[in-house]
């Protein structure tokens, strides 16, 4: 197309960085250019989005202002400006991408179907009516089909589908919504779907496929559907028997199952949805949002047993929308994998691996390059926090330059890797727990794919201190230089980046399940005075034993018994020789997550759990907020070893000497930004447990649970107030607890404490890799 050229007076080159490619950036710029009579070009380059614009100075100024308001998050730079007598340019055009050696643009994220596309799918007359793969310049798959940056059709798996003339016309028409939409396609030229049975026999094709699948769901079958980032298992969420069957076949007895509903109104029928939560549900990322569930919704009560919450999401693609419309009931939509394996994303693999779970398969022929699960978020006091960063959210890109490219391997559970490129930190999507061969293979493949995508080869690797994490062994196997960092320091530094506090010291509260420390104990209830490169342990939970090691995590009654033993209450229950041995040889921990487990076991009588967060989640779920009182942790300001002979009482054995922990620092402090030595605070849970024991006789579990949550919130505020000249950040899996976070938020604002709640970077080990990268960067010994 040609814009009538007014003789231009000025020619300017702009560079926009930090923009998300593939979300209609270049077409939008082209339209803005047309509005302001600009001639020139726009292209994606290795440096960012480059704009060359020539026009009258006033038009140019207006254009520049529009650009800045339209793309507020972009780093905007005027690179050169020349005065011209006239221009040979006659139009404004999108020029093909030039491919450079480093990509300074941001990986585009998968976007859920937009309103315009949704209307076309539902319209009876549109030529893309009922087409499951409809997309436009602002919606559709991006990262999940991308092979390498920048985002162009020929670098995605859409290159297998040459545009038909009609699609091509739209692609070329600047006035069209699909102008330069890299994923544009239609029933004639685009991907196709088909249905097979468990044996792989073809049962239905194209439009008929959707009708067929919807009918099977309606009849109570479990179907495997190839979605954006991989296969999903879908069934009727109101059919109790089907949900039971899914749980049996997936070997997933208790873990909550996410549910998809057609629209916001349907979501409101199943759960309480605040404005902030509605916003998350309808966001282009389309995550699963954890909501407070309503009662008597007609859903199977196996959806999220023992929890007062439900994970809901809206249709993420046209395919999901068509299914939701056709079935007309809430659908269970869960990752297509066998127990312990990562999400399956290849057709043949799905057909073989999921045949024991699903009776019918909906495949399609658009390949997935980056498998990615559904994301999970929740809102705390109206602001969203990420629980699982995956489709639509990951890769998370944070502007942060470094002269060393480095890979961070993450932890052992909820692993996600992060890559430091020349100008940003990129956190890859959730992979899973490193307990299975297939998830370990997925990790190694993901690392390769991420490096290809970003065209970066890392020259250094950073991993956790834990010698037995797979990621540690794997990182050490790499040829390049390796650094290791302490688990909770990494948690805290991740939170420092989240809150833009990297340039100062913070009080980091790292409460999680388990993290290794080289003092031979398991940390997890830590208060760290931390900078980006260093930390000092200024407080920790009073240590206790985990009888039987990992067995104590699967069977929280063991922790309850161990805690009671330390209270000197072992006489009233039989501690047999074997248990005593397990206890004497169990690892010593200061873990807050494990304290939650022990309390949950005591209060709710939980014997065993399938998932390590389960006991704490159930304790959170029973909280009765009408209870306004609290238990009290006692904070001992002392560097004296806890539980020495002075504390040994009648009937209570002295705490083993290994429980006496010295103050710990990552290394001797030196020079600038050093952390000034502080006494170590011992956070004593015994008064809390003693009070719980007393209350068990006359108070409801709901009130006891609330008083315990309040005690933890109060403890955090107390710690923050003792260090009130610096901000306090929270990190670690314990802070996925909404009840706890809301209590903290409330008392922090009452007491004017600067306590920062979790946000975009996953607060659990899913965000660990970001902290690892930053610590390695700040460590003078690993430059």
């Amino acid at each position, binding site marked *: 197309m040609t814009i009538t050229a007014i003789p231009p007076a000025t020619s300017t080159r702009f560079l926009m960085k930090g923009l998300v490619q593939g979300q209609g950036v270049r077409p939008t710029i082209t339209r803005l250019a047309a509005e302001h009579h600009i001639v020139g070009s726009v292209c994606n380059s290795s440096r960012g989005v480059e704009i060359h614009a020539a026009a009258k100075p006033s038009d140019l100024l207006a254009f520049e202002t529009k650009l800045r308001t339209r793309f507020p998050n972009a780093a905007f730079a005027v690179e050169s400006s020349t005065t011209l007598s006239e221009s040979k340019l006659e139009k404004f055009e999108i020029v093909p991408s030039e491919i450079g050696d480093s990509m300074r643009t941001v990986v585009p994220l998968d976007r859920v179907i937009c309103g315009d596309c949704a209307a076309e799918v539902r319209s009876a007359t549109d030529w893309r009516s009922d087409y499951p793969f409809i997309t436009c310049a602002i919606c559709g798959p991006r990262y999940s089909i991308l092979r390498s940056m920048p985002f162009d059709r020929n670098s995605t798996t859409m290159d297998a589908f040459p545009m038909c003339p009609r699609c091509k016309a739209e692609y070329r028409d600047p006035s069209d919504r699909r102008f330069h939409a890299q994923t544009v396609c239609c029933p004639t030229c685009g991907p196709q779907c088909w249905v097979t049975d468990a044996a792989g026999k073809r049962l239905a094709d194209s439009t008929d496929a959707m009708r067929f699948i919807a009918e099977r769901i309606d009849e109570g079958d479990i179907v495997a559907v190839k979605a954006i980032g991989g296969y999903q298992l879908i069934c009727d969420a109101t059919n109790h028997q089907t949900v039971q069957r899914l749980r049996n076949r997936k*070997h997933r007895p208790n873990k909550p199952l996410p549910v998809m509903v057609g629209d916001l109104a349907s979501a409101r029928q199943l759960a309480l949805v605040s404005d902030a939560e509605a916003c998350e549900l309808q966001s282009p990322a389309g995550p699963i949002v954890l909501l407070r569930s309503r009662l008597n919704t007609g859903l199977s009560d196996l959806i999220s047993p023992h929890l007062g919450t439900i994970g809901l999401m809206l249709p993420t693609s046209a395919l999901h929308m068509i299914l939701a419309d056709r079935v007309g009931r809430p659908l269970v939509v869960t990752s297509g994998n*066998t*127990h*312990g*394996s990562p999400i399956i994303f290849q057709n043949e693999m799905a057909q073989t691996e999921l045949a024991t779970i699903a009776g019918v398969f909906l495949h399609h022929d658009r390949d997935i390059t980056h498998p990615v699960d559904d994301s999970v978020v929740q809102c705390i006091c109206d602001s969203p926090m990420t629980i699982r960063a995956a489709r639509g959210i990951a890769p998370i890109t944070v502007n942060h330059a470094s002269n060393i490219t480095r890979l961070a391997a993450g*932890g*052992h*559970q*909820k692993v996600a890797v992060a890559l430091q490129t020349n100008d940003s930190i990129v956190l890859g999507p959730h992979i899973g727990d490193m*307990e*299975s*061969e*297939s*998830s*370990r*293979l997925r990790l*190694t493949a993901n690392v390769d794919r991420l490096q290809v995508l970003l065209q970066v080869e890392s020259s250094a690797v950073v991993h956790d201190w*834990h*010698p*037995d*994490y*797979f990621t540690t*062994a794997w990182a050490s196997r790499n040829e390049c230089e390796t650094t290791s960092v302490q*688990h909770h320091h990494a948690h805290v530094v991740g939170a420092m980046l989240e809150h833009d506090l990297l340039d100062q010291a913070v009080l980091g509260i790292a409460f*999680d*399940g*388990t*993290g*290794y420390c080289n003092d031979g104990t*398991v940390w997890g209830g830590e208060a760290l005075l931390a900078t980006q490169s260093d930390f000092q342990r200024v407080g920790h939970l009073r240590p206790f034993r*985990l*009888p*039987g*090691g*990992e*067995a*104590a*995590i699967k069977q929280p009654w063991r922790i309850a018994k161990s805690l009671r033993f330390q209270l000197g209450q072992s006489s009233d229950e039989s501690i*047999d*020789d*074997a*248990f005593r*041995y*397990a206890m004497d*040889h*169990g*690892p010593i921990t200061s873990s807050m*997550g494990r304290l939650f487990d022990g309390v949950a076991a005591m209060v709710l009588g939980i014997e065993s759990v399938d998932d*390590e967060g389960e006991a704490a989640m159930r304790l959170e779920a029973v909280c009765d907020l009408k209870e306004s009182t609290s238990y009290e942790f006692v904070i001992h300001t002392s560097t004296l070893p806890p539980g020495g002979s002075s504390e040994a009482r009648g009937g209570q054995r002295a705490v083993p000497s290994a429980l006496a922990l010295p103050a710990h620092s990552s290394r001797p402090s030196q020079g600038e930004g050093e952390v000034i030595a502080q006494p170590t605070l011992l956070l004593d849970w015994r008064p809390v447990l003693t009070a719980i024991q007393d209350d068990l006789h006359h108070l409801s579990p709901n009130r006891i649970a609330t008083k315990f949550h309040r005690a933890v919130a109060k403890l955090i505020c107390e710690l923050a107030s003792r260090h009130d000249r610096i901000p306090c950040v929270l990190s670690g*899996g314990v802070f996925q607890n909404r009840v706890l976070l809301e209590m903290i938020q409330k008392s922090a604002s009452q007491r004017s404490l600067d306590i920062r709640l979790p946000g975009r970077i996953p607060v*659990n*080990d899913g965000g660990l890799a970001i902290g690892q990268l930053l610590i390695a960067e700040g460590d003078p010994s690993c430059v």
Partner: protein
Amino acid sequence: LSHGEGGRVMRRLIRDRIGAKFGDGNVQLHSDAACLGNLVGEVAMTTDSYVVSPLFFPGGDIGSLAVHGTVNDLAMAGARPLFLTLALILEEGLSVETLDSIIDSIASAARQCDVKIVAGDTKVVPKGAADQIFINTTGIGVHQHTRRMSACQIQPNDCLIVSGPLARHGLAVLAARESIALSPPPRSDSAPLHRVATELLQTLGDDLRTMRDATRGGVAAVLHEWAEESEHAMWVDESTLPLLPESRGVCELLGLDPLFVANEGTFVVAVAPDRVDDALTVLRSHAAVGEPSVIGQARRRKLSPVLVARGLGADQPLDEPIAAMLPRIC
């Protein structure tokens, strides 16, 4: 016993309390070096030191262990054990009765294993320099077959068989040492394996890829060694692991994985897949060995050297822990 006794006292001790127990043709007390005569076949030699607390435990004691352990090392290599040497390091203060019963146990184990104890040494060290008694035995045997055991001969699809219930020795010693009262108390599986090993070798020939007694580090250690040497993966189905109900209970309570617990008479065999039944028949004919079980197979390696299928979930890598018992769950 006391440290620094004169030569005469020691000589008498050795002659009366040790040498005499082994009978004719055993310890050659009057020569500096034992004469073993002409051996037919390739000679195999191994040595091992035994320290265990407590000295006596259900199913055995340090004496029988010192014989079985070394005999089994020869047997697993495919050799027929013939001779042992016996070196004793005694802590001052060890009671003569204790020594007597250990020596009796050594003598009876040696008789049972058809080996002669041909040379020995005894030292008494000051209190605290040893823990009651340490024993070293060196074994000499001959190969009667051209086959040599090597994990390099393991091929993908070869079957892994374990000869009997796992974890018995480790649990017996643990329960005895820590005075963990269990009923029934776990019994050690300590037993000689030379007869069953010879028969397996004769029956299976080249189809017997390799075998190994699963002592320290348990079956897990054997599988890791084999995986490393063969460069394949060793895959095990947890549900097929033979385990006495009482062992299962103790392992669960203590948070121990039976794959890592020591055995002293239980061994692992890798055989060609089509000879599994023959191998099982031989194993079953030796009642002392226990009830054998096919526990898995060798597979082509993808990533992890040893894999366990637990329950119905995905295959889990069996990692050898460095920081023993420190959980990885966050």
